[in-house]
Each structure stands twice: as structure tokens, then as C-alpha cells.
């Protein structure tokens, strides 16, 4: 079910208002500021991934959007409604997967899913959804006896069984094995194709790279960057990376390369040639580095030209000492 990524047509109702609009949202717990003027938009037919370290405010955002907490200030529009005032109306049009689960422990898995489905007028077929997510395999087992991954699949099923327009998924892939994760990702892609707006929080860069139409990087309750994965990762300089024995003398290589690049051993045996201005890492630079390796009698392993990975971008945006301040 690979979805063609054609800019401009991926959201056929692009003229429509965003499914979720958050502007300047503030939430404090006593002296702790969880959300500090957060801005975010999630559109129909798109997956919006919220990335950021623990404590950045991702869960608080989901709780405010689902009416479980009241924001102190700021603008919050969920499907055009206010989650605190119009919670009743929103509850049938949104789906929620909470990080702490919230599944009743004493009940069999399928009974929980049927209970949630029965709250909705036109739910998905429970058996088909259970089969797709592999819930039928443990449908009679009490929730408290389920593994973390099984619980997570059940929680996801409960979040989407009511056929929501907007799904809030707080770390949906936590605890999933690779097979279950592939099934979940496939379902999320199908939901997106069906026009659902999906807001998910995650620590998995692979998940964001695979699914997200838009990424919002959150740090200390504020959105510090947003855009597509490509937009976020294309801002950095090109880098030529390769692996070779540690501590090679780099002076000869530096002399052979133009001054528009800089060469470093970033970790023992990891070498990087970084462009100082756009386009500086060109085919000639690659050839020069390769022949220098040949002259050294060294085989460069994993020689690639690229930009920064999403993980590097997120670490750079969210790292730094102030993350630990007060």
C-alpha cells in the first residue's frame, strides 16, 4: 500500500481548515511549564509526527487536545471545536491512544474493543480490525495478562474503531515487535489514505521518516522546527562519510582537498568531509578522498554522501545544556 508522495495532491481537501490547530498553547503544572507557547497544525489525510525528548510536552499536548487537561492559555481548535467546551461532540469524531493505556485490566481484550466500538454509531467491523492487528489471537485473554505489544495493538484498535476524523496516538509503536510495527504502520498509512488526520508522538525516527507528512520537533513545550522530513534534513551541509582504520594521518587528504571542505575524524575510524558552502562536496571531492584512501592502502567502508539524518537534526534541535536547566 505504498502511497505516492505527490506534492499538492496528497491532501485533496487542502482548502479545508486544518483538523487540528494549536497556537501559543501554554500549560503549567505549578512551577513546571509543560507547554510554553506551542504552535502546531495537523491536516486531514496527513500523518503529523511530534518528536522531542521526554518531558518536552508531547503527552500534555495530547491531553489538552483530548479535553483531559485544560490549557492555561493559547488557542486550541480540534475539528473546529474547543475540546473542553465541546468534548461531547468531539468524543465521537476523534480517537485517542493514551500513553498510560487506560485499558480495563480485568476484561478480555476483545470485550474491551467491543465496548469501545459500541459507543460509536458506525464503528469498524470489530472482527476484521481485530484480525488485521492480530488481536483475535489473544481476544479472550485478560488485558492485565497481555504483553506490552499486545496491549499497544489493542489500544490502537480502540483509538480507531470509531472511525475518527482525527486520531491522537501517544507513542503508538512503543513495545511493538518489528512485525507488529509493520502492521501498525501499514494501518496508519491506510487511515491516512482514507482521509484521517493522524497526530502521533514518537521517539522513533524510523517511524517519523516512514509515516510523517509533517514533523514538529518540540523542545521544552515549544515547537522548535516543523516541516517535512526532507525539509528538516536538507538544511544541513552535505557530508562525505566513510569508515577506515582509526587515527589515519589526515594532513595529506586535507592538502589534496579544496579549502571549501573540512575533514575530521569524528569518532575513531569514522571520517567526515563536510562542505563549508553548498555544493562543495562534489564528485571531484569524492574521487580525491577515494584515491587518498587507495594511496593509504585503505578500503573506505560505507562511503556515502548525504546530509544530516533526522535523528541528528532532532538531537541538535532538542539537545544542549538548557534541556537540563531548571
Amino acid at each position, binding site marked *: 500500500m505504498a502511497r505516492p508522495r505527490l506534492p499538492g495532491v496528497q491532501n485533496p481537501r487542502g482548502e479545508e481548515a486544518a483538523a487540528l490547530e494549536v497556537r501559543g498553547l501554554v500549560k503549567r503544572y505549578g512551577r513546571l511549564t509543560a507547554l510554553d507557547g506551542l504552535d502546531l497544525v495537523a491536516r486531514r489525510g496527513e500523518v503529523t509526527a511530534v518528536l522531542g525528548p521526554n518531558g518536552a510536552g508531547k503527552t500534555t499536548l495530547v491531553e489538552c487536545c*483530548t*479535553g*483531559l487537561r485544560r490549557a492555561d492559555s493559547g488557542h486550541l481548535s480540534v475539528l473546529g471545536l474547543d475540546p473542553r467546551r465541546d*468534548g*461531547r461532540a468531539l*468524543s*465521537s*469524531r*476523534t480517537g*485517542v491512544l*493514551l500513553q*498510560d*493505556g*487506560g*485499558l*480495563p*485490566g*480485568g*476484561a*478480555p481484550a476483545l*470485550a*474491551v474493543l*467491543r*465496548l*469501545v466500538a*459500541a*459507543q*460509536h*454509531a*458506525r464503528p*469498524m*467491523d470489530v*472482527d*476484521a*480490525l481485530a*484480525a*488485521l492487528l492480530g488481536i483475535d489471537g489473544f481476544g479472550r485473554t*485478560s488485558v492485565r495478562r497481555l504483553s506490552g505489544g499486545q496491549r499497544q495493538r489493542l489500544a490502537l484498535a*480502540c483509538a*480507531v474503531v*470509531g*472511525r*475518527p*476524523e482525527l486520531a491522537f496516538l501517544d507513542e503508538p509503536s512503543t513495545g511493538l515487535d518489528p512485525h507488529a510495527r509493520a502492521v501498525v504502520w501499514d494501518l496508519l498509512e*491506510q*487511515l491516512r*489514505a*482514507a*482521509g*484521517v488526520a493522524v497526530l502521533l508522538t514518537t521517539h522513533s525516527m524510523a517511524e517519523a521518516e516512514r509515516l510523517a507528512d509533517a514533523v514538529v520537533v518540540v523542545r521544552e513545550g515549544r515547537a522548535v522546527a516543523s516541516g517535512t522530513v526532507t525539509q528538516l534534513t536538507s538544511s544541513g551541509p552535505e557530508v562525505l562519510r566513510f569508515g577506515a582504520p582509526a587515527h589515519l594521518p589526515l594532513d595529506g587528504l586535507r592538502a589534496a582537498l579544496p579549502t571549501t571542505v573540512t575533514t575530521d575524524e569524528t569518532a575513531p575510524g569514522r571520517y567526515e568531509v563536510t562542505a563549508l558552502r553548498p555544493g562543495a562536496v562534489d564528485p571531484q571531492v569524492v574521487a580525491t578522498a577515494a584515491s587518498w584512501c587507495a594511496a593509504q592502502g585503505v578500503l573506505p567502508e560505507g562511503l556515502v554522501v548525504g546530509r544530516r539524518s533526522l535523528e541528528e537534526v532532532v538531537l541538535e534541535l532538542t539537545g544542549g545544556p538548557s534541556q537540563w536547566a531548571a
Partner: protein
Amino acid sequence: MGSVSSQAGPAVLELAPAGGAAPAAQRVAAQSRFEVGVLLRNGEQVLVSLVLPALALLVLARTPVGAAVVPASLGGLPRIDVVTPGVLGLAVLSTAFTGQAIALGFDRRYGVLRLLATTPLGRSGLLLGRLVAVLVVEALQVVVLSALALALGWRPLAAGGAAVPLLLLTLLLGTAAFAALALLLAGTLRAEAVLAVANLAWVLLAGAGLLVPREAAGAAAPLLAVLPSSALGDAVRAATLDGTLALGPCAVLLAWAAGAAALVVRTFKWS
């Protein structure tokens, strides 16, 4: 495999958004069915709701323990007639108070109340569904325990035909008082504390005027009259032994229900 047409293909998964809540009655009914299922699957709950009241009935009706429990003032009546209404009151205490408080306390701890509050069921539907589930389980308890009592010689109509409706009315009043107290407990304390208090209260309240008539306490008997357990015990015994509605005890039960409910509205924490 007789019929080919029974081999339906796999249902198609409709993913396109189609919001909308089910009708309120269906939402609450689903929640009640679910809760009844959970209660009946829970071994401890069945023990407290059915097995222990049934044991109490047998022990009090058929062993010398019963003679010590039934006070002299009621000594002239058949012991099973004195004991049975108290056991039915105990069943109400088990389900409406102890069982509900513990279930709700842990649901609150594990975020179940939060999650269900985000579904169309909502908070009011959640509580209503649980109340209906309590009434369903109580009906089951009354049927089973009454059948056992009848087999042991209980004569519910000895005091006239009004006894049965009056008994059910007083059990409902008791349910209101104890369910409100369960909400008060479960909505304010930690789950472990709810577990401890609810179980301890079950034992103490059973002894304080419910299973054991308060007259057994001698000089302290008038003081016990203000407890919800004594009020329910007095009311159910007045219903079946005298065929009358005991207005005083009923007023006490209503006061507990109203007082606890008023506090619940102010103090209940959903998470």
C-alpha cells in the same frame, strides 16, 4: 458444512472517517454488560458478592453462631426469618460498596476513567453504566440468596404481601447510600487504600447492625442507628418481619446517599 452461503467472506474494514455516537441507551447498555461480565469473571468479587453471603446465611441459620447473633428481642421469630434480610443487605453492601469502590479505585489508577471519558460514553455514561451493572448483579444476588433462604425455610410473606416490595425498596435505598460512599472512597484515595478501607469496612459494617442486628450491641445500640449499615439492617428487617417501611432508617440511608453524593461532586478525582 451444509450451507455454502454461510461461508461469508472476510468483512471489509471501513477506514474512512464516519464519526457519530451510538444512542445513549446503547452506550450505557454496552458499558453495563461489560461491567457485569467483568464482575462475574472476577473471582474475589464473586466470593464477596455471593459465596460469603451464602455462607453467612447457612452459618447464621443453621449453627449455634446464629443463636448468639440474633438478639433476645427478636428471639421469638424463626431464626432464618431474622437472618435472611440482613444477608440480602450484606449482598448490597458487597456489590454497591466494596466491589464498586475497589473496581473504580483501580480503574481510576490505571487511567481507565480517563480513556473512557474520551469516548462517546463520557463520564456520566460511565457512572450510569456502572450503576446499572450494580443493580443487575444485585438482582442476581437477591434471586440466588432468596432461593437458598427459601430452601432453608424462609417465609418472606409472613408479615404480609407488602414485605417483598418494601424489601426491594429498602435494598435500593441501601444501594444509593453505599454506591455514593463507594464513589466518595474511590474518587479520593489511592487504589491500595481503597482496597484496604473497602474490605475493612465490609467486615465492620456487616457486624455493625447489618448482619448482626444492632440490638445485640446492648447499650451502644442507639448510637449504631446512625450508621448506614444499621439503617439498612433495620429497614430490611422492618420490611420483612413487620411488613412496614421504617421511616427513620430510610431517612438515615437517604441522608448518607445525599451527603456522600454532595461530597463526591466536590472531591471526585478522575485520574
